[in-house]
């Protein structure tokens, strides 16, 4: 499992490894997992998945990616492609467990997030301050790389609702992460 097999692929580019994986070379795909596994798991955790659940979904996402590796044309990054797969799988799991509706239908707290400029606040900490729907939408658009329209479709929500969640989430994040910035954010991301 480890050792010479992996070092053989360590110097190769992602696109080359994808090509090898497409021929059934599982060790080459293992190198891709080694490189990007943390990033994919990180996005899922930022979407709100707990550790073990994030790992399960990430594993499924990589297995799905291996099955569909021939579809990857190298137009974006491999990590970005798998992140999208993982995000959609996680949403599907939420839907199956009837958790998605509760998350996206939660009431929005209008209270202003408290700003603590003196404290060192990382992204993960800041995301935890968001409502579940805001966190999902922001993570989908900025972490998994989905457009507003794609996120709306994946969440089965109106486009306007997703844009609102993103905007509110960005406002709160900016207050936490960049409290010195002046103007309010415009939800300009995506093609929706």
């Amino acid at each position, binding site marked *: 499992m480890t050792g010479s097999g992996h070092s053989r692929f360590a110097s190769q580019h992602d696109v080359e490894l994808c090509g090898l994986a497409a021929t059934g070379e*599982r060790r080459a795909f*293992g190198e891709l997992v080694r490189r990007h*596994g*943390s990033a994919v798991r990180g996005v899922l955790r930022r979407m709100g998945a707990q550790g073990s659940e994030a790992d399960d979904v*990430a*594993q499924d996402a990589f297995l799905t990616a*291996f099955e569909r590796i021939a579809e990857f044309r190298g137009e974006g990054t491999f990590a970005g492609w798998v992140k999208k797969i993982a995000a959609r799988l996680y949403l599907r799991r939420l839907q199956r467990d009837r958790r998605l509706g509760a998350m996206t239908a939660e009431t929005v707290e209008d209270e202003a997030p408290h700003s603590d400029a003196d404290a060192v606040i990382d992204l993960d900490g800041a995301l935890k301050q968001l409502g579940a729907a805001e966190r999902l939408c922001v993570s989908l658009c900025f972490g998994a790389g989905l457009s507003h329209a794609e996120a709306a479709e994946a969440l089965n929500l109106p486009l306007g609702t997703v844009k609102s969640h993103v905007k509110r989430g960005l406002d709160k994040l900016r207050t936490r992460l960049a409290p010195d*910035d002046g103007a309010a954010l415009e939800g300009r991301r995506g093609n929706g």
Partner: protein
Amino acid sequence: MVEFERRLERLFAEAPELPDAGPFADRVERRLDAGWTARRWLIGAAGVVGGVIGASQLMVSNLFQRVETAGDSARLLSTSINHISAGTDWMAAISSGGAVVWAAAAMAVVMMGFVLTRVIGEI
């Protein structure tokens, strides 16, 4: 502003390497290996089942009787050919009649299993 959004994208992209990144990749590889092993077994089993079904179909379709008839025909053909021209070694082999038909039937079963295996493999 857009600048903040870019910064946010960078923050999202800068995912820290998790301490169990190696074991995680090993788990994924093990699942890949298990999937391929299961698939190989499935394909092999499907080939065997296909072969057995093919063979049983040949058995139940009055094959023995037809082989006898075909054997007689082969012998008759061989005799006729021998009358027309001097026999060669391979012509002599044909004179065994029934054995040739049995070999052809066996080849057909093997081919059927092979084709079925390939088809399932492609799926």
